């Protein structure tokens, strides 16, 4: 289904969820010209934050993306604590909630490499451009090659522009 990017951002921000925008949406905030369908967040794995995250998303019918229907999946704090990275479908569209990202680590590792940016009218932490490139390079996925090339060109253009 089509992603409601602004809706997702609003739900998490309004609930006070500590999360860092990463992936394609972060690339957009930095100036990428590629259309993405990714709504990826690196969330903080403290009990309070996990409770906020579960409460914020539960009304939007989160379910494991690609899983057969009818599984007894409930996006509740215990589920989040037992797991780490969740690829979900929700009434707001697909959302990836990551507790850890290859190459850059968890929320605590990344938070010092973020910028506070206005995204869809909300102030959010967005991973900085070099750290975004680092994560894409570390993932080593062939599908990311075009995206990495663009992000590196973007970094160079940004630096040249001062």
């Amino acid at each position, binding site marked *: 289904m089509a992603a409601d990017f602004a809706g997702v951002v609003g739900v998490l921000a309004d609930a006070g969820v500590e999360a860092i925008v990463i992936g394609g949406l972060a690339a957009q905030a930095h100036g990428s010209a590629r259309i993405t369908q990714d709504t990826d967040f690196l969330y903080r794995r403290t009990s309070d934050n996990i409770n906020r995250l579960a409460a914020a998303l539960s009304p939007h019918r989160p379910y494991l993306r690609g899983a057969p229907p009818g599984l007894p999946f409930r996006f509740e704090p215990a589920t989040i604590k037992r797991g780490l990275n969740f690829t979900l479908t929700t009434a707001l569209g697909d959302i990836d909630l990551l507790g850890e990202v290859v190459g850059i680590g968890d929320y605590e590792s990344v938070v010092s490499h973020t910028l506070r940016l206005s995204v869809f009218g909300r102030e959010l932490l967005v991973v900085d451009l070099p750290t975004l490139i680092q994560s894409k390079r570390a993932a080593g996925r062939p599908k990311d090659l075009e995206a990495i090339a663009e992000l*590196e*060109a973007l970094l*160079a253009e940004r630096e040249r522009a001062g």
Partner: protein
Amino acid sequence: MSSGDEEILRRFGFEPDPVIEAYKKEVDRTLLRENLRRTPEERCRNFLAAYRLAEEVRRAGATVRGG
């Protein structure tokens, strides 16, 4: 590689990768320069508009195909 990219990448701790460099030749830098003139909020709004347009076209295509 555009002149000076290599030096900038190394400044940020990245060793230029020949495979990525091959893809970089296809990057339209004029679009990136335009985007860099915008605020992050403007970039996200423009992206949303482009995404919605793409979704609309996708939906229209599915309708024509009887999907």
